[in-house]
C-alpha cells in the first residue's frame, strides 16, 4: 500500500568518488573565490589542505578558512562565522567537516544572505529566497547533513538545540571522498556509522516514509551491512567510501521521511547528559526497533533482509552486536546517564519533534520503559 501522500526531492547534487576532492575546481567551474568553514582539528590533520591545495592549484582563491567550529556548534559561533564571512568577498562557501561544521556553514549562509540574527531565523519555511552557493564535504560518515535541509545549532544560553529547516538550507553540492575520513578514529567511525544506520532504519519505519525514501533507506542499510565492520577495523578506502555513500543515502531518506523515537531519546540524552549523538543512537536503536516491531513487523523484517539476515528479530540482534563490535558502549549507565535522570529524558523525548513520525505512538511512559531497558 502506498501512502496517501508522497513527497520527495533531493536538491543537493551529490558527487562521490575516491580522490574527488582533488577535482573540486572542476565541479566549481565558474567560481573564483571560496570561503572554507571547518574546525581546528581538521586543519591540523591536513584534511582542509586536501581540499584547498588543489583548488588553489586550479586558480580558485581560498579567501579564508573559518576553523573555530566546536563539536556541537553554537549560536555565537555561527554569528562569529557570519562576521568572518561578511568581511571577505567570496562566491561559494565550502564546509569541510562533520555534521557540526556543515550545519554551521548552513547557518552562516542563512545569516549572511538574510542579514538577520540566527535566533530570528528559527522555524520552518522562514526563507523565501535561495541562499549563496554552499558545498559540503563530509569528514564523517554519519550525519547526512551534506544532503539535508536541516541544521541544528545549540543556544549556549538556554542549552536548547535550535532547529532550522528550509529547502534553501540544503547544500548545492555534496562532495563525497573517502580520503576525507582516512583519519577517523575507530570509535568515531563506529558511532557515526551507527548514526547513519539509525537514520536509515528510522526513515524506513517513519510514518512519513514513501517509496523514494524507502528505496534509499534500504540501500543505505545494505551498504552499512557490507562496510561497517571493515570501515571501523581495517579502515580501507573501499569500506570508508561505502560508509560515506551509505550515510548520504540515509541522509537523503530521512531528510524527507524524518526519524522516530530513537532519535527523540538520543536528542534528550544529548541535551540533558551530553551523550554523543551516535553513541546514544547505537545504544537505543535495538530497543526502539523492538518497540516498533509490534506495529511494523514486516518492515523490520525487510530491513533485516536488506542487512543480510533473515528477519527482524535477527536484525535487532545484528544491530546490537554491530555496535558492540564497534567498541561502543551498549548501556546508558556506561555513558553518564543516571538512573534517576531517565524520567527527565523520557519527558523530553516525548515532546521531541522526532517522536511525531515514529510508527508507534510513544508517550513518556513508553519511552521510560525503553530507557530503563537500555540503562
Amino acid at each position: 500500500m502506498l501512502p496517501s501522500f508522497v513527497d520527495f526531492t533531493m536538491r543537493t547534487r551529490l558527487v562521490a568518488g575516491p580522490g574527488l576532492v582533488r577535482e573540486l575546481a572542476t565541479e566549481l567551474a565558474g567560481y573564483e573565490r571560496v570561503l572554507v568553514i571547518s574546525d581546528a582539528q581538521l586543519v591540523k590533520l591536513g584534511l582542509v589542505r586536501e581540499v584547498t591545495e588543489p583548488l588553489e592549484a586550479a586558480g580558485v582563491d581560498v579567501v579564508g578558512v573559518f576553523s573555530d567550529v566546536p563539536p556541537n556548534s553554537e549560536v555565537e559561533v555561527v554569528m562569529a562565522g557570519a562576521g568572518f564571512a561578511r568581511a571577505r568577498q567570496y562566491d561559494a562557501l565550502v564546509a569541510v567537516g562533520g555534521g557540526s561544521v556543515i550545519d554551521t556553514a548552513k547557518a552562516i549562509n542563512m545569516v549572511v544572505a538574510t542579514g538577520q540574527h540566527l535566533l530570528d531565523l528559527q522555524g520552518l519555511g522562514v526563507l523565501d529566497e535561495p541562499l549563496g552557493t554552499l558545498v559540503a564535504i563530509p569528514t564523517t560518515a554519519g550525519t547526512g547533513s551534506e544532503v539535508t535541509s536541516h541544521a541544528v545549532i545549540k543556544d549556549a544560553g538556554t542549552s536548547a538545540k535550535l532547529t532550522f529547516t528550509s529547502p534553501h538550507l540544503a547544500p548545492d553540492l555534496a562532495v563525497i571522498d573517502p580520503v576525507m575520513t582516512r583519519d577517523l578514529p575507530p570509535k568515531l567511525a563506529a558511532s557515526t556509522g551507527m548514526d547513519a544506520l539509525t537514520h536509515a532504519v528510522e526513515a524506513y519505519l517513519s510514518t512519513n516514509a514513501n517509496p523514494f525514501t524507502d528505496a534509499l533507506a534500504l540501500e543505505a542499510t545494505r551498504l552499512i551491512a557490507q562496510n561497517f565492520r571493515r570501515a571501523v577495523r581495517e579502515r580501507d578506502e573501499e569500506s570508508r567510501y561505502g560508509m560515506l555513500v551509505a550515510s548520504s543515502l540515509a541522509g537523503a531518506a530521512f531528510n524527507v521521511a524524518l526519524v522516530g523515537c530513537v532519535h527523540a531519546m538520543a536528542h534528550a540524552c544529548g541535551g540533558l547528559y551530553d551523550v554523543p549523538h551516535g553513541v546514544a543512537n547505537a545504544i537505543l536503536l535495538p530497543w526502539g526497533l523492538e518497540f516498533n516491531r509490534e506495529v511494523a513487523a514486516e518492515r523490520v523484517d525487510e530491513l533485516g533482509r536488506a542487512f543480510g539476515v533473515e528477519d527482524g528479530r535477527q536484525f535487532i540482534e545484528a544491530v546490537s552486536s554491530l555496535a558492540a563490535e564497534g567498541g561502543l558502549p551498549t548501556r546508558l549507565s556506561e555513558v553518564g546517564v543516571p538512573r534517576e535522570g531517565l524520567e527527565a529524558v523520557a519527558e523530553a523525548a516525548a515532546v521531541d519533534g522526532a517522536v511525531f513520525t515514529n510508527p508507534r505512538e510513544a508517550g513518556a511512559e513508553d519511552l521510560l520503559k525503553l530507557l530503563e531497558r537500555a540503562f
Partner: protein
Amino acid sequence: MGVFKDAAELYECIGGLFRRGAEHPEMGPKIRASKLIIKFQYTNPEAQLTIDAKNPPPEGMYFNVIEGENDLQADVTMSMEADVAHKFWFGKLNLVMALNRGMMRAKGPIAAILKLLPSIKPAYELYPQYLREIGKEDKIMG
C-alpha cells in the same frame, strides 16, 4: 471558495474554539504553562489570532485570545491558509507533514509548538462539537 466567508466568520469559528480551549480544564493549564505568545496569521480570508499565555489572562480563562493585529512580541508565528487551519482543528492534518509541505510556515522555535501538540488533542473533538453549537454544522468535515 474557502470555508470562511470573511474574517468575522473565522474569528467566530476558530477564535471561538480558542476561547473554549482557554477555559478547558485540561488544555488550558498546559498551554498556560508554556508561557508562549503564539500568533496565527491566516490568509483567505486575511485574519490574525493570538494566543497569549504570557500575560495575565481574564477571569475564568487560562490564557488570552486576541483577534486581529496587535503589538505583542510573538515567540512563534504560524502562517497558513484559513482552510488549512480549519482542517487542522479537526485533527485531519498531520502538522509535521503540513510544515514539510509548506502548507504551514512556522517562525520561531518549532520545538515549543511540537511540545504542545499532545496537549491540544481534546480540541479535535471540541471543534466539531462547538461548530454544531453555534449552528455551523455545514462546516463540519466528515
